[in-house]
């Protein structure tokens, strides 16, 4: 590459690229069908080059983003003959995907006949086939029970959709109408990005844009190294525990050994426990994404999250462990678990290296999906719980956010309106308020989880599935801060004893009038509780955030 690039042109191209992914996100948000996308925003956008380097991304779901380079590599490996107008789709965790519900669409961007970049949209589908509705199958012991696997396929060839393939996919999914709508939105957003990137090429010339991209990545690397080099050198250890795998194993350990030298960081996860028979395993791409996510939380918020920022980071892991499962193992839970535990283990390790940057643990995911019939219109419904968000971790900056989410989403998942939920689903939300005493104590207190009491107003019994973790282990406290309260969910059914719900259950029988008593976890505290100010404690008491005098 002979073109010399000045810092201004670099800034201009960088600005343009990030504005393109923002536009793609705006389009996606407003056109997708499923609640999980248009309300909860469980999607991400990126631009990668043909060698799988992430050039630009929009800030949506952090755990998606670090995985996109691996997805791109899988596409490049599969297809040597990409033509303008092609659209490639994949979800298989063993060929570039993270877990099956995350469907990823790729649109190539050409300059003349030279292929240069991909615009990419990854979006979580509300169903992906398999043994259970809503993709999460705690009973699965093989990936075949988790849904339809899509290796990299050409969904469009030179601008022509492969309707036969589309029919095949839609046929394997429980809500084909929604699936088609969401897919249309994904392709619309990716094509929008393609048009805008192509214009960038024609305006500046390919060579200039390519040179600018190199300069952007180099500059971001430099910026990151400046930050990392201020942290203390050494070898640091941290670990976090998964409650269980739902198949009899408990306290599954994720172990991080972090070696920090100068401006380089090596994260070694080889000490983590062996893989599981259930869906708590991580795919390789997802493990990489989780490590990248932890690192992104420690560096400055305004450093662009592209491949350049990750160059100081080296990841070591062993196949066959919980963080990197052998092909064929189930993995659906991995974007939340063990992602959250991987992040937590790394942050814990780093508390000795950069204590002014680490934060208390953020909540873990404990989801419920309900399938039943709405007596008002006799239609089937599938409802995913996004309400009752857990609390965020406290930080050197102050107390944690309440009702905000997990490590892997950090305030990027919106829970929809309760009024709208009551109109659309036969559910009654009796209570949805902060859960007192759930935030981990500390100099800065963890954010609060939520107390949700929800009554099922169906005429016939419905079925529930759970998927998640964190009912035994709460988000960790940091530097002397206390852990947040773990999740605690119960099923209250008239004439029966209240039953504590486990985090990995299939086919829970729900009777009309049953109440789900959800108590989501708080965030971890930061710093010793003795150092919490008298004013802060008085305020917590006045606001009813803590019930007991401390």
């Amino acid at each position, binding site marked *: 590459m002979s073109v010399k690039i*000045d810092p*201004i042109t670099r*800034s*201009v191209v960088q*600005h343009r690229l990030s*504005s393109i992914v923002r*536009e793609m996100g705006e389009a996606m948000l*407003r*056109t997708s*069908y*499923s*609640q999980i996308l*248009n309300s909860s925003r469980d999607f991400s956008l990126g631009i990668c080059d043909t060698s799988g380097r992430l050039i630009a991304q929009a800030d949506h779901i*952090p755990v998606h983003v670090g995985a996109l380079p691996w997805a791109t590599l899988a596409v490049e490996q599969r297809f040597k003959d990409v033509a303008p107008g092609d659209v490639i789709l994949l979800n298989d965790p063993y060929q570039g995907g993270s877990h099956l519900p995350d469907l990823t669409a790729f649109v190539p961007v050409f300059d003349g006949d030279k292929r240069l970049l991909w615009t990419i949209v990854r979006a979580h589908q509300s169903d992906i086939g398999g043994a259970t509705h809503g993709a999460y199958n705690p009973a699965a012991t093989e990936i075949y029970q988790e849904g339809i696997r899509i290796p990299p396929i050409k969904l469009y060839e030179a601008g022509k959709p492969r309707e036969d393939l589309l029919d095949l996919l839609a046929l394997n999914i429980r809500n084909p*109408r929604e699936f088609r*709508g969401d897919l249309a939105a994904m392709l*619309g957003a990716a094509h929008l990005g393609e048009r805008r990137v192509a214009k960038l090429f024609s305006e500046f010339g390919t060579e200039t844009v390519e040179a600018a991209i190199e300069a952007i990545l180099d500059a971001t690397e*430099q*910026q*990151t190294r*400046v930050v990392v080099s201020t942290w203390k050198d050494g070898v640091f250890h941290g670990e976090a525990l998964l409650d269980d795998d739902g198949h009899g194993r408990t306290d599954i350990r994720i172990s991080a050994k972090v070696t920090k030298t100068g401006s380089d960081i090596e994260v070694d996860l080889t000490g983590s426990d062996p893989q599981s028979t259930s869906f708590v395993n991580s795919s390789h791409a997802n493990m990489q994404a989780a490590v990248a996510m932890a690192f992104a939380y420690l560096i400055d*918020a305004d*450093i662009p*999250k592209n491949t350049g920022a990750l160059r100081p980071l080296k990841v070591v892991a062993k196949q066959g462990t919980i963080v990197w499962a052998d092909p064929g193992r189930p993995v659906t839970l991995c974007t939340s678990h063990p992602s959250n535990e991987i992040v937590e283990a790394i942050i814990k390790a780093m508390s000795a290296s950069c204590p002014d940057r680490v934060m208390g643990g*953020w909540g873990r995911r404990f989801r419920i999906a309900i399938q039943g019939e709405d007596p*008002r*219109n006799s239609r089937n419904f599938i409802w995913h719980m*996004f309400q009752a*968000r857990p609390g965020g*971790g406290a*930080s050197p*900056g*102050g*107390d944690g*956010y*309440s*009702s*905000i*989410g997990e490590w892997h989403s*950090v*305030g990027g998942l*919106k*829970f929809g*309106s*309760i*009024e709208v939920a*009551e*109109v659309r689903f036969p559910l*009654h*939300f*009796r*209570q*949805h*308020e*902060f859960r007192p005493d759930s935030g981990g104590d500390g100099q800065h207190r963890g*954010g609060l989880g939520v107390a949700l*009491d929800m009554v099922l107003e169906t005429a016939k019994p419905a079925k529930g599935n759970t998927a998640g973790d964190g009912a035994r282990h709460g988000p960790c406290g940091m530097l002397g801060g206390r852990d947040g309260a773990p999740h605690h969910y119960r099923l209250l059914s008239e004439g029966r004893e209240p039953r504590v719900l486990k985090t990995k259950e299939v086919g829970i029988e729900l009777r009309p009038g049953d109440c789900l008593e959800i108590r989501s976890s708080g965030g971890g505290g930061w710093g010793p509780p003795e150092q919490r100010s008298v004013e802060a404690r008085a305020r917590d008491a*006045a*606001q*009813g955030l803590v019930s007991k005098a401390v």
Partner: protein
Amino acid sequence: MFTIGIDVGGTYTDLVATDETGRTVFAKSPSTPADQSIGVMAGLEELARRIGVTRAAMLAATDRLVHGTTVATNALLERKGARVALLTTEGHRDVVEMREGLKPDRYDLRTPPPEPLVPRERRFGVRERLKADGSASIPLDATALDAAIADVRRSDATSVAVCFLHAYLNPVHELAAVERLANELPGVSVSRSSDVLPQIKEYERVSTTIVNAYVAPTVQRYLANLERSLIEAGFAGSLFVVLSHGGMAPVEEASRLAAGTVLSGPAGGISGSRRCADLLGIPDLVPFDMGGTSTDISLISDGVASLSADGMLAGQRIALRSLDIASIAAGGGSIASVDGGRTLRVGPESAGSVPGPACYGNGGLAATVTDANVVLGYLDARAFMGGARPLDRAASEAAVDRIAAALDLSRIEAAAGIYKMINLKMADGIRLTTLRRGVDPRKFALLSFGGAAGMHAAEVARELEIRRIIVPTVASVLSAWGMLTSDLRYEVSRTHYGTGRISADEVRGLFAALEKQAAGRLRGWFKGDIAIERSAEMRYGEQVFEIDVLLGDVDLNAPDLVADIEERFHRRHEELYTYASRGQEVVFVNARVAAVGKVARRAGDAAAVSSTAPCAPRGRRQAWFGAWREVPVYGLDDLRPGQSLDGPAIIEAETTTVLVDIGDRVTVNGLGWLDITLR
């Protein structure tokens, strides 16, 4: 008789008066933030002086005074509103603090959450509950209500927001609570969600109602003072306030829906832009108002300013429909910096007016956009503000040199880079605004106003492939001037409840009720003809975001009414997002009606005298157009209709500078405005 428009800005209060002959007089007077009415009264004095009469005589001969105020805006931005308490459904008092689970800035995990306007200790649950169909599953519990009111009393709140779940369908519990509050706490201001925003989605409704409660007492006090001062000064006409949706309303209405005045100021700019579109016969304009700290961007499409309910101000969600104004943190005061990766950034930090750009000589050391403009020769340091406030060129150079050194560039390269980056940012803001509305910016003309816009308009336009720029001579008082032509407007909406497809009778019923309500209210203020605007917010079955579909010429009595409305939705969806799904279920969410009272127009602006003589520059100076060029400098006031000139050139007026790039051509139109065609 006079009509007077008054726009209170951060620094200046602008006033414009016009009479039957079309004579238009401007005045500017310093704003008085502590009590804006003082500046307004002083400005009226100045305006009368320029007209050549006493203030009392002028006011006695004024039938309409239209006011854009920033009282609510400032109360929110500076957190100086009322002490608010919230009465809400028991078990749901944290809706406003949960913010739907969202947090800005995904990767910033070290900034603590913002303080809500109403802290938890002043949010009180009341035992009551409506179901999704509006029926009561728990009747309002009188004892619980009294206990909550006692809590409100103890909290020393001066204003109360009342918001119960599903009250948009059935306000009966809210009405009962408000009545009880009025009896128990007579001095306390009350805002009711079913009055402020009777729409589904509790976060938006409670947040908007709280904002209303927060600003209402301040707005009410201010408007009452102003009205009293005006009457004492001899005013006998009607005082109207511009609302965020661009229409105007009498004081009582602005006091009721105080949250609807938060964009009162910039709304005047859009009225002005719409009037420009009218006068010029250009239906598609991008109003581009660049000031010191921020740039306001909006859209006039087919002569109509678009409205949106996505509003957010000072971190508070305000879901009232307002003009779709995107305010981006980019202006003359935006600060340039170099980050750890040696990347040049411009903004969002601003030097504001204190200390201001380095060249102001008030102790500011940071290089700002204005400093770059001085270095590039665009701004004449000596002639700034008509020479009243000369700029320190050496200070600008020193500030830009620091950026240059960090980037290993020359001074001029650094200045040109700052100039380029700020333009890009503003173009970006326009692009996102247009995308949201599903329009292509290329067919628009850029309307350049506000002090700094003229120096950046050409590059911003080029970035967006816009080919035409208009610079009106009223650019510096466009908002006040626009207010003269604001219409009266009253908006109402209602959410449709139903789990199946809406029927034609339901559509007719909804609109008939809303039209009766809207027209009835407007009739109380206005005797002239009332026009009705209808629209509906709709979405596909599984979507969550509704889109607004105008139903202006829909025949409500047509037998295929619902199919017609749905087809309009499909078409609009296609326009906005490139596809429609005609096989899918369409959900009708909210019906909206605006009753509009068109005010009589005064005569148009008097045309300037035209000339065919070539333009004569006032002088020449060095400026950067990719290389140093000596370019002619024209006085805006010297240019006459019919004249034209080619870039590179600089056109100067007292409060603005317009840059004409190489190859661009300026024509002076019949109004004396600049009409620039880009090469």
